[in-house]
């Protein structure tokens, strides 16, 4: 085991940690409707494909998408992103997470969704190159026992 090999292994651990941080910062910004901070998490030509909104490419289109969220995501909504599974391959990485959405009463509700993401290191900083959010996840037909 050489010093260079060891440095590479530490680099992967640091990258995983940095990607977790990026993704959690994004969700903190989402919960507090900090649209500019959310935008900052994307690479310039990144893609956001969120729920039923359709894919948007590049910061201009993603900014327009976030404008559509304005007034729909409320401070009373809970956002819990968890269970990251991240694989790093040099300057790019992939990961998936669960996102729980908690809506307040009088009849509290929860929704389970999933993030599937690609990340890219730009000038030493990890960014989203692709972010997909699917809800409900799993699709209801797969979590319900078939009748036959």
């Amino acid at each position: 085991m050489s010093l260079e090999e060891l440095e590479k292994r530490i680099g992967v651990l640091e990258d995983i940690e940095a990607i977790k941080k990026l993704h959690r910062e994004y969700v903190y910004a989402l919960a507090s409707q900090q649209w500019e901070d959310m935008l900052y998490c994307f690479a310039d030509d990144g893609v956001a494909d969120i729920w039923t909104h359709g894919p948007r490419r590049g910061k201009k289109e993603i900014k327009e998408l976030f404008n559509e969220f304005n007034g729909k995501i409320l401070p009373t909504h809970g956002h819990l992103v968890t269970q990251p599974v991240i694989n790093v391959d040099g300057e790019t990485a992939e990961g998936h997470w669960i996102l729980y959405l908690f809506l307040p009463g009088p009849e509290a509700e929860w929704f389970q969704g999933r993030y599937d993401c690609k990340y890219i290191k730009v000038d030493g900083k990890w960014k989203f190159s692709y972010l997909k959010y699917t809800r409900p996840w799993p699709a209801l037909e797969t979590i319900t026992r078939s009748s036959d």
Partner: protein
Amino acid sequence: MSLEELEKRIRVLEDIEAIEKLHRKYIFSLSSRAWDDLLDCFAEDGVADIGQHGFRQGKKEIRELVYEDFDKLEITPGHLACQPVISVAGDRASSYWILYLFPHEKPMRWLQGKHEFEYVRIGGEWKFSKVKFTRPWPPVSE
């Protein structure tokens, strides 16, 4: 600090990361009813001791548990595993986690349980040697 000592310390961090990943793969496969992926998390002689489903040892018994018991559940609730506390000792490891279950019911309710797992490294890959799920946790006295 020698290179060998440093390598040992890095390996423990890598192992913790790999064990968290394995554990999450289990939860993702449980949520999406991907039973073969779930079985793949277990060592050949692994043990599953899950709530009221009783004690099962070995892949054959665990396969029965999954395909006969789990698959009969009408609808799979939300599964949220968090707060891992992982201890690694060479090729063995142990952990505990909180597992929240969210049934698909109105009004919304949640159930809190505890995972107590043991892991073994086989051919460089971590697998479950023991899976224990207790609910409710902490125990509620009558």
